[in-house]
């Protein structure tokens, strides 16, 4: 996203953040719910973007990790534990399961990996549905409490929206730091050329597992926020289509772009809502919109921006070259 001046970028960022804090203040209950959902899904999509966009490992199981986080949070908070403790457990649990799921990635790649993770996703759904002693089975878990922070209850939609937004801010900062750290560079090396990365001394085995584990842990965080957001969970939202939706968010926003998941989640969560006035047609229009977008730009929305900026840079560079050349000629 270079090409804009740095102060301009910071100003734009501040305006967006201020907007996200101020504008929803007079939103109704449903609007706040949708916006909170956007924040939660963005966190999950950011995790998948790390695994897929930066480290190049296809995963169709992110929805299962959202489920794992959601059930961990639901079970713990209904038993009187505070939400932050539940989030920690959700992170540890998803990290561990994600690490194990990474092992197949050491053996198989691309579509084979996609199918292993797809199978895992469906298996997780079966466990959520069938182990009713733990998960409540098809009846789910209801009356999930929302937390108190520093004595402030977040039962109302607006305070809880700020909890989601605040969590998104923390996760965003962590991911921003991570992709600039040596780890992030190792992930990208893994995506671009695993063999070359290995010959440069990067422990590809460890980083592949790490990419899965960290990405999955963020899925767990999203789940741990999802449970108190809806206050009722059952297995249905965590079936395979959530994993497919999250994958769609990452690709549509732009895989491997930092801001991709924000935009992708916006399209996947908000666009169907904006299209609701078309009643029965809204999901159909949404599907068509996604297909048209991908035909136009297979690298997603940020791919379009990236191409435009690259083009402008080339033009600017060739203009500079022309000027320099004419100066040389006049000097002669």
């Amino acid at each position, binding site marked *: 996203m270079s090409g804009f001046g740095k102060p301009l970028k910071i100003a734009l960022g501040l305006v967006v953040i201020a907007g996200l804090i101020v504008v929803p203040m007079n939103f109704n209950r449903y609007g706040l719910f949708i916006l909170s959902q956007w924040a939660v899904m963005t966190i999950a999509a950011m995790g998948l973007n790390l695994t897929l966009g930066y480290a190049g490992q*296809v995963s169709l199981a992110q929805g299962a990790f959202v489920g794992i986080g959601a059930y961990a949070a639901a079970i713990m908070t209904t038993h009187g534990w505070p939400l932050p403790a539940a989030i920690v457990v959700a992170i540890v649990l998803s990290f561990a399961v994600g690490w194990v799921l990474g092992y*197949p990635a050491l*053996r*198989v790649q*691309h*579509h*084979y990996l*996609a*199918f*292993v993770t*797809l*199978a*895992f996703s*469906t*298996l997780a759904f*079966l466990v959520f*549905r*069938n182990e009713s002693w733990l998960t409540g089975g098809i009846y789910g878990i209801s009356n999930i409490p929302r937390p108190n922070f520093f004595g402030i209850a977040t039962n109302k939609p607006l305070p809880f929206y700020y909890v989601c937004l605040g969590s998104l801010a923390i996760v965003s900062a962590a991911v921003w730091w991570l992709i600039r750290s040596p780890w992030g560079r190792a992930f990208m090396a893994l995506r671009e*050329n695993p*063999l070359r990365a290995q010959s440069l001394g990067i422990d590809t085995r460890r980083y592949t597992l790490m990419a899965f584990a960290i990405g999955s842990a963020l899925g767990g965080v999203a789940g741990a926020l999802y449970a108190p957001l809806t206050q009722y969970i059952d297995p249905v939202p965590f079936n*395979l289509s959530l994993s*497919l939706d999250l*994958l*769609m968010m990452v*690709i*549509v926003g732009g*895989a491997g772009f930092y801001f991709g998941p924000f935009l992708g989640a916006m399209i996947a969560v908000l666009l169907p809502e904006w299209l609701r006035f078309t009643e*029965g*047609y809204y*999901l*159909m229009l*949404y*599907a*068509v919109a*996604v*297909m048209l977008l*991908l*035909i136009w730009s*297979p*690298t997603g929305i940020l791919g379009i921006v990236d191409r435009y900026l690259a083009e402008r840079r080339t033009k600017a560079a060739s203009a500079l070259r022309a000027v320099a050349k004419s100066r040389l000629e006049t000097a002669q």
Partner: protein
Amino acid sequence: MSNLFDLLVAGLATGAIYALVAVGFTLLWQTSQTINFAQGEFVMLPAFLMLAAMHAGAPFWLAIILGMLLSMILLGLGFKLLLVDPMMRHGVLPLAIATMALAIGIKEAVKQFFSAEASPFPSIVPTGDVSILGHAVSLQSIGVLVVAILAVVGLTTLLNRTSLGHQMQAAAQNPTVARIIGVPVERMILLTFLINAVLVALASLLITPIYLAKFSSGEVLGQAAFIAAIVGGFNQVRGAIAGGLLIGVLDNLAASYVSTQYRAAVPLIFLIVVILFRPQGLLGRAEERTV
């Protein structure tokens, strides 16, 4: 043991349908690197096209022909020209995502324009049982098996015995060389899309009388076909057939010998084991890694 025999027959019948769908799936992968996540919806749609033709007053046989033709136009030609062609050169993943969106689109369109309820669908085989080796076997199972076997034999004959089939295989295995020796590669790819459309329409015709026509019925079927294709070998037609039959039988055996709750888990665990220990599939060739 009579129970086992019945389960095997029922399993082979469902497996034969999975095999048809899985074969189409592998054909698309081989010729154009398309992972079609809408394959299950492709099976669901033709039944509704046939139902629509019947609502318009066409007799069943005419509805079948119209459904097949429409399926070839929409799911074969339209799918290739409008979605696959513009996206093929951009790699596997964006196209796979686009087919996921297509799956949502087809489901919602059927729900909106036809019905959200399950509709009954006439069977091409009369109901009833015949006795084989002292076991009552439903005519439906036999009909499904016969039609599926005929389709598979027809397809393999086309692929292995005719010049057209050889050209198709050449186009799939090495498009560049195929082009050099004068194979019309583009036309061959289009042909595989049309064949896939016929296969899914056929599968639709066979499976819908058993499970009813419903907008959401493609989800389970599509996943079963995926698993079949991968277990058998992603790059082999005979692998997909074997995988389909295997998954069909496994599914039916799991339904009665494993708990009904975890019945669906058996093929999935089998899939994971196969991918981890024999990623090329039971009958597949290994794909080479390039640096």
